[in-house]
């Protein structure tokens, strides 16, 4: 019984950051900007969250810092890909590299150790009662509502599908895209902050450990739909939790570690076919 509860809490706490980042990715992609930079936004969120807590000792301020850190990189990604028309795959990969290097340097400068930060004040409430979990749930609903019910959502989807057409009906294409990537950065940053100041109480170099990439996969698998994101992330988190729980029964751990990835691959092959991203991803309004 204990174990089943443990698997479920584990599933949730591993899914929360993935859901947040993937939600961010959904907004970004829906506005026509590919979101390979999620990893960098999570990293910044995790780092800045700790930084905020370190300097203020206040958890709320820490969360805000984390969100701001993610938003900063979201904005960078936006400016590069919208204003300077950088290939979005490259911008994403470049920012991912930059985020890890920059945070490591900052750790060196601030804490004189480039591996991990000191322990800081943290939320530490466990996933079921954490404020970030509630923000996440609200974000899922809000994102769904905004995307599919509001005027802004309609415009955003229009921009993502066909920026040229959106421009010809007078929509402020760039502004909408900037809003979208900043929101994306905020959500992914919150996901990162969850890792560092809720689940743990410190920043460790590269601690997002590839979650940003997994969030990209989840977002695609979910067909860029906020509700489906939750489902897909839970499938992934669940298989990971089960994998952890089943370790130590003779199967080599490396084989066990493949399970969530194989599950995702199978879902991809036999469950979710022909995923078409918004037609305007990577396109510009003025070409």
């Amino acid at each position, binding site marked *: 019984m*204990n*174990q089943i*509860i*443990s*698997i479920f*809490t*584990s599933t949730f*706490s*591993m899914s929360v*950051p993935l859901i947040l980042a993937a939600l961010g990715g959904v907004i970004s992609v829906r506005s026509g900007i590919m979101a390979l930079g999620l*990893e960098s936004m999570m990293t910044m969120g995790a780092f800045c969250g700790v930084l905020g807590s370190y300097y203020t000792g206040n958890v709320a301020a820490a969360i805000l810092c984390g969100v701001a850190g993610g938003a900063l990189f979201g904005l960078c990604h936006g400016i590069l890909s919208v204003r300077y028309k950088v290939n979005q795959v490259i911008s994403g990969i470049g920012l991912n590299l930059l985020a890890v290097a920059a945070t*490591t340097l900052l*750790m*060196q400068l601030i*804490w*004189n*150790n*480039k*591996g*991990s930060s000191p*322990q800081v004040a943290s939320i*530490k409430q*466990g996933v079921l009662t954490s404020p970030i979990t509630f923000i996440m749930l609200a974000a899922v609903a809000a994102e769904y509502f905004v995307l599919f019910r509001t005027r802004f959502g309609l415009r955003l989807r229009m921009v993502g599908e066909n920026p040229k057409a959106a421009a010809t009906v007078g929509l402020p294409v760039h502004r909408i895209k900037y809003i979208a990537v900043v929101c994306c950065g905020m959500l992914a940053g919150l996901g990162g902050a969850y*890792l560092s100041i809720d*689940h*743990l*109480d*410190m920043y*460790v*170099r*590269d*601690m997002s*450990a*590839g979650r940003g*990439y997994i969030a990209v996969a989840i977002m695609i698998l979910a067909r860029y739909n906020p509700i489906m994101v939750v489902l897909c992330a839970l499938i992934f988190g669940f298989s*990971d*939790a089960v994998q*952890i*729980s089943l*370790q*130590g029964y003779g199967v*080599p*751990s*490396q084989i*066990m*570690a493949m399970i969530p990835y194989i599950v995702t691959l199978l879902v991809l092959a036999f469950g979710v076919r022909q995923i078409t991203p918004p037609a305007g991803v990577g396109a510009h309004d003025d070409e």
Partner: protein
Amino acid sequence: GSQGSGNGGSGAGGTTAESGTDKKENAGGNTDGGSGSGNTAEGAKDGSKMKVGLVLSTGGLGDKNFNDMAYAGITKAQEDFGIEFDYVEPSSVSDLLPLDRQFAETEEYDLIIAIASDQEEPITEISEEFPDQKISLLDSAAEIDGVSTVQTEWSEQTFLAGVIAGMGTLSDMELANEDNVIGVIMGMDLPNLREGVVGFTAGAKYVNPDVEVLEGVVGAFNDPGKGKEMGLSMYSKGADFIQCIAGASGLGVFGAAKEADRYAFGVGPNQNGEDPDHIVASSVRSVDEMVYNEVKSIVEGTWEPGLHMSGMKENAVGCDMEGSNVAVPDDIKAAVEDIRGRIASGELVPCKNADELDAWVQANQYTK
């Protein structure tokens, strides 16, 4: 993304090891002539003309562990003997050979210190190429001509923590439970870490043959988030003591200990200060002292090639309870000291190999 550190990464988060990389005094090269290949070292107590090169292990500085400890050791030596040093942080195992070679090629260094057993082969090649170069290889059991290797045993390092856990899980310690279950978590499934696991298990079964030892692998040295889940999962299965050998992922295991209100063991340096109420002890390995001693020997002219052991006898590995607030019952403490003596004296040889574990446990049972 890329993998975490390579072989040899282990626990983290210490307080004793001087953490961090102070900005190096520029070592850009001003060894006013006197270096050559080492013969100036003979008899010199003052090392101010000496220069040492340090090739760290993959994973690099900031691990509050292995690499940071080595760095702390060499800075201490710098203070005491006035030597100069340069160091490098390899980014992958494939870079080890060219880095070792670059040090040797300059012929500026009186001693090159290499860390971790994955440098065995590069060092073998380099020592053949530059037979006059003095090289120390730490944490390796290889016998290489002209190289001083310092061997430590993972099985000795974690054995005493196993003893505490094995006795503690059935004791009336505050956070222990009735289940006869304990656990051990590796960062990655690597052979030398597995020796640590076997040592821990052997230690526990030495005092408590029926104890169940859960094993887990996080899959990365830099994922404390997953480390924590792994820890929580084990605690939920009834474990009350967990030894982590997981680099920075181990920090997550400490988090799990706090959340589940159970016990954990640190590894590497003394990590008890990370959470003195839940970390009972740390399975330490004094890499800093090993580095210091190698430098010292070269300064004092006592450096000698060959295989050196640095075990429990030399107090280089073992169990350190200093700084922990956990109240360990006196009988356990006594047993730990007793067993420490038996290992140091060579009376008891911890098991290293999982295949031999059952036989070893049958053959070795603790009696006062």
